[in-house]
């Protein structure tokens, strides 16, 4: 477990014991890990860092409304099949042979799920991002794939995973996931980081930022999150802002700099107004 934490930290991911435990169990027990939390707290980053740490491929399936099995699993490369038939029109091969040829793996377009299952070298990390944005039917389909990691393609047969992928699912809780899916997975909740942890993250990810400035930035962000905003900024926004400040060569926060860079972490006009009303003294 410490090893995982260490490995993640090498990838500049500030992991705490909770995340390390969750990942360890997920790998040791071979169960998918469901990570929930507000937007921008680094849910996706976990999977990316894990893949880097394990030196394996990251296969990402971004969910959206209307995502269906074909886009997630496989499709036949229909134009290629047609062209192949056209080329073979005069060849002496029998019809059955031709058919076998065009329904072979060469004509299969592998979508993320099939890719993850057929990965030969080593178990990849399969990231199913924002599962709450897909619809219920897709969730049910996903359950089926995740339970035995095999896919049946009528023309080819059943393909079983050679290496069971490490599955990470993320959700923003925009929709309640089904109980069946929740039970199949290990569960981990990430919240906005504490001041100290966020500070650590900022310093690790934006090393050019000065000690003093990084502290001020994190303090402002922590205070911002307690306001009543429509879009609460996540850690991603903190990092954007820190990067912007570094790029501008800022050494301390003042009113002018704030006004120029506030767009980095507040993306809504009314939110900016709220922020300004609550922060008349940010210039120190």
């Amino acid at each position, binding site marked *: 477990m410490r090893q995982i934490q260490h490995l993640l930290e090498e990838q500049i991911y500030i992991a705490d*014991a909770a995340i390390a435990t969750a990942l360890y169990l997920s790998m040791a027990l071979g169960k998918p890990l469901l990570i929930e939390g507000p937007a921008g707290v680094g849910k996706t980053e976990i999977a990316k860092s894990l893949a880097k740490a394990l030196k394996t491929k990251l296969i990402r399936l971004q969910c959206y409304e209307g995502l269906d099995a074909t886009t997630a699993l496989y499709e036949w490369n229909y134009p290629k099949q047609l062209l192949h038939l056209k080329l073979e029109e005069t060849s002496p091969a029998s019809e059955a042979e031709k058919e076998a040829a065009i329904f072979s793996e060469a004509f299969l377009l592998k979508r993320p799920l099939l890719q993850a299952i057929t990965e030969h070298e080593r178990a990849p990390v399969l990231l199913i991002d924002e599962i709450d944005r897909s619809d219920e039917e897709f969730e049910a389909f996903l359950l089926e794939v995740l339970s035995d990691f095999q896919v049946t393609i009528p023309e080819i047969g059943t393909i079983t995973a050679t290496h069971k992928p490490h599955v990470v699912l993320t959700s923003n809780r925009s929709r309640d996931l089904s109980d069946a899916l*929740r039970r199949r997975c290990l569960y981990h909740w990430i919240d906005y980081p504490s001041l100290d942890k966020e500070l650590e993250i900022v310093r690790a990810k934006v090393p050019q930022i000065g000690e003093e400035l990084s502290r001020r930035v994190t303090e402002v962000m922590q205070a911002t999150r307690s306001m009543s905003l429509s879009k609460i900024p996540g850690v991603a926004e903190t990092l954007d802002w820190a990067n912007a400040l570094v790029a501008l060569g800022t050494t301390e926060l003042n009113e002018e700099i704030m006004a120029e860079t506030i767009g980095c972490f507040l993306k809504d006009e009314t939110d900016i107004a709220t922020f300004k009303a609550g922060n008349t003294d940010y210039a120190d």
Partner: protein
Amino acid sequence: MLELERLVGFCRELREHGLSVTPAEVVTAAAALQIIDNRDRGEVFLSLRNILTTSVDDFPVFESLFATFWSGKKLVQSEGRSKIRRSSPARATGGVAFFLENWPTSRSVDVPGASDTESGAEKDFSGFSNHELEEISRIARRIVRRLARKRSRRWRPVARGHRVNLRRSLRLSLKTGGELIDLAYKERRPKRTKLVVICDVSGSMDIYSRLLLQFVYGLQNSFAKVESFVFATSLSRITGELKNKTYQRALDRLSANVRGWSGGTRIGASLATFNAQWLRRIDKQTVVIILSDGWDTGEPEQLVHALEQLKQRSGRLIWLNPLLGSSTYQPVTRGMQAAMPFINVFAPANDLASLRALEPHLVL
């Protein structure tokens, strides 16, 4: 060291407190204890929490029960069961809950038209918990999802779909010399059901408007084709005020922009204004919902005329009356009696169950 027996007991205890722990999860938990350092409290806690909870809402219950479990004390079955309640979801502590805690409670209910002897009016909605408010939003979302999913019989071309659009595919094939290379697809067009919600916020409706506005807010924000209005003595369109904001901010803007809030009621005049300005936007694909108790200080003739027009243009006219929830209520007020012949659905809207029952009526 942890024995299996205690683990099973712990799981049973979790179940009794409302967590759904399946036998499969117990097995997983047992397997996990084999591979971790099961003398380390932190490690055991995190591992079991990963396995045995399925949502952040479960965390408080889990934490409190884990403390007892770890200390090795015998878990007392009956005591504490009622004490530890599942807390409301974390997200509920954001906009909605914040607003409701700050809702001005001193608003007077003593206004024209409202009768104190009406029994339904005595029901107190201020007791609504965050959990129930969440539920209202959820009902609104579900209704809206059902509306949006409804498919019409007509087809439309789409970039990707399940059905091949033969006509288009053949036309496409012309540019490749009659060879079908690119396929075109089609799907059923979604039904264009629209919703118009007209909510009474006059004084007599005061105790319900909080609940109902939450409902309207929920509808407004999960469906593009909703227009919302409020009226007391005059009509205001609030679609823009409700859209894409936190509930708190939406209500701030409402109270700033809407005049005559909590005043008397002029349903007929308000609906006449609605018809004058918005009737042309209403067609047979539109469901019109009026939320009102029917207490009208104006002339019934005006109301009759307005409703007649509305009924003719709209696909369905629904009148939700919170007072209908009480068993003794009869729609005898002049306004309500005049309105009855034009209403397709006359239903209560005083509690969660009544809102839930609304779902089938909204689908045309």
